[in-house]
């Protein structure tokens, strides 16, 4: 195979050389930072994804060296390949920013604003997108579309009301599992992710649809309502798994493993594992291994400090030496109150992490 020619492309006045056939989005991600357009449906690890949500629209102000005319409309950067000498404007174009705010408004038309209840809050791409690119108000005055909650198998909860129809989960099920059992039913406003006649999803890798979902439409039932994402501590861990790479992120509170997910990169996509393949994890690792003893913990995950998840994570903290007992001739200070004796929260007889379902009132009123 001959060497692919390198094309020069300028995105937001930053020039980069990328091989021919790269999309504008991938080129922008190579530059990184704010230049990379946000994506809701495109997922680099899934073949055929992208082109649906329109959040990655960019302006092409110069088509190529040979044909320098600008493209007449904004183009979806995840589906447009670069040309030699192409000039792209993303955040430097007011047209793009305006269009993106409009796209966010469209995505939020039917999206319920139930972030206080939603388990995805804090790591939700739509939340970030609307915060960074959206407007404060919506002009929509009608009833939002409402669906009933559906259980996809006993571990995955589908909230169709929150879905933005990015099709990522459909591609995941198609490409990771042997027989796909769910997809999109109906069309247009009625389109919904569904299993045909409430069929259970049995495949070993189906749990990955939770990780690829950019919103809270597909959530982990074993973690449902247990804790907010930002109160749990993410740590990298691994175990020997014969089905998957076994490299995961544990979301812990104290010594309890509340949730297991695949590791994510800076674009919110599943990272590559150390073996080089995409680090999808199997259902056994995700749903059944909820004890610290199941895992070998590598250390705390690196979390972007602008993320709410990093709250209360005091990185590089140096605690001063405790001098009190030294001053008091080796006697420890008298504890005036042990909060664990008084507080009703985090009682030892209620192990939330070991429940395979959300906690109910009868779990607390034992």
């Amino acid at each position, binding site marked *: 195979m001959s060497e692919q020619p390198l094309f020069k492309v300028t995105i937001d006045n930053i020039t980069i050389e990328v091989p021919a056939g790269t999309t504008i989005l991938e080129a922008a991600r190579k530059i990184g930072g704010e230049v990379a357009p946000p994506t809701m449906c495109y997922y680099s690890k899934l073949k055929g994804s992208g082109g649906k949500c329109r959040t990655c629209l960019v302006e092409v102000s110069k088509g190529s060296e040979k044909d320098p005319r600008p493209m007449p409309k904004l183009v979806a950067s995840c589906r447009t390949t670069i040309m030699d000498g192409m000039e792209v404007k993303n955040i430097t174009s007011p047209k793009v920013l305006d269009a993106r705010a409009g796209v966010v408004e469209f995505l939020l038309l039917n999206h319920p604003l139930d972030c206080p209840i939603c388990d995805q809050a804090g790591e939700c791409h739509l939340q970030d997108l609307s915060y960074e690119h959206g407007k404060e108000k919506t002009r929509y005055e009608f009833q939002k579309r409402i669906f009933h909650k559906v259980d996809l198998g006993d571990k995955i909860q589908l909230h169709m009301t929150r879905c933005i129809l990015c099709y990522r989960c459909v591609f995941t099920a198609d490409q990771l599992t042997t027989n796909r059992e769910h997809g999109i039913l109906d069309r247009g406003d009625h389109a919904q992710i569904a299993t045909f006649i409430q069929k259970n999803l049995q495949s070993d890798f189906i749990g990955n649809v939770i990780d690829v979902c950019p919103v809270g439409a597909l959530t982990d039932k074993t973690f*449902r309502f247990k804790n907010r994402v930002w109160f749990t501590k993410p740590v990298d861990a691994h175990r020997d798994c014969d089905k998957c790479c076994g490299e995961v992120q544990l979301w812990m509170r104290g010594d309890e493993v509340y949730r297991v997910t695949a590791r994510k990169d800076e674009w919110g996509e599943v990272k590559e594992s150390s073996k080089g393949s995409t680090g999808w994890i199997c259902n056994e690792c995700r749903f059944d291994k909820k004890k610290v003893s199941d895992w070998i913990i590598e250390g705390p995950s690196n979390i972007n400090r602008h993320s709410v998840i990093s709250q209360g994570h005091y990185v590089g903290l140096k605690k001063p030496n405790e001098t009190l007992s030294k001053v008091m001739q080796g006697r420890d200070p008298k504890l005036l109150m042990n909060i664990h*004796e008084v*507080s009703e929260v985090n009682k030892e007889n209620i192990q939330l992490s070991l429940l395979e379902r959300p906690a109910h009132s009868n*779990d607390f009123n034992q």
Partner: protein
Amino acid sequence: MQALTNRAKEVDRRQMTFLESIYLWNIFKGMIVTFKHLFKKRPTIQYPEQQRTFSPVFRGLHVLNRDEEGRERCTACGLCAVACPAEAITMEAAERLPGEENLYREEKYAARYEINMLRCIFCGLCEEACPKDAIYLSETFAPANYNRRGFVYGKQDLLIPNPKTEAPELAKAKGIH
């Protein structure tokens, strides 16, 4: 040294005369100030009998709100706890079971909700953060207590009386007689 203001007075260290040394004039000057206060309005408030009105923005003891049907508004979203600079708030959430719709407004609710009043600095950020109008800082103080364990307030201590079933208690708590 140069003075910062021109109001500084030089200390007069001269020997006092006899008239000055019996302080008669100075005592008289002082008594004028004293007697003037007899005819002024008294600023003291006789506390237990008389009570000062709270300012409308006073930030006192927290209450957990209910809606007009008596359902708890809190959905345990954790925004108050993440906003709390003193890390005084903790909670545990649970899913509403069928049949509990009259108790909780949303499908998720706080099964446990605790505010450690020893840590709380009454800044009111929890009230600002709450998206569900569930937590408010009321116009009362946290009552004094003899031991520390009495300052960890659970849901029973914070919830307002149910407007449906405990209307008289609610009116009393609001100060409407």
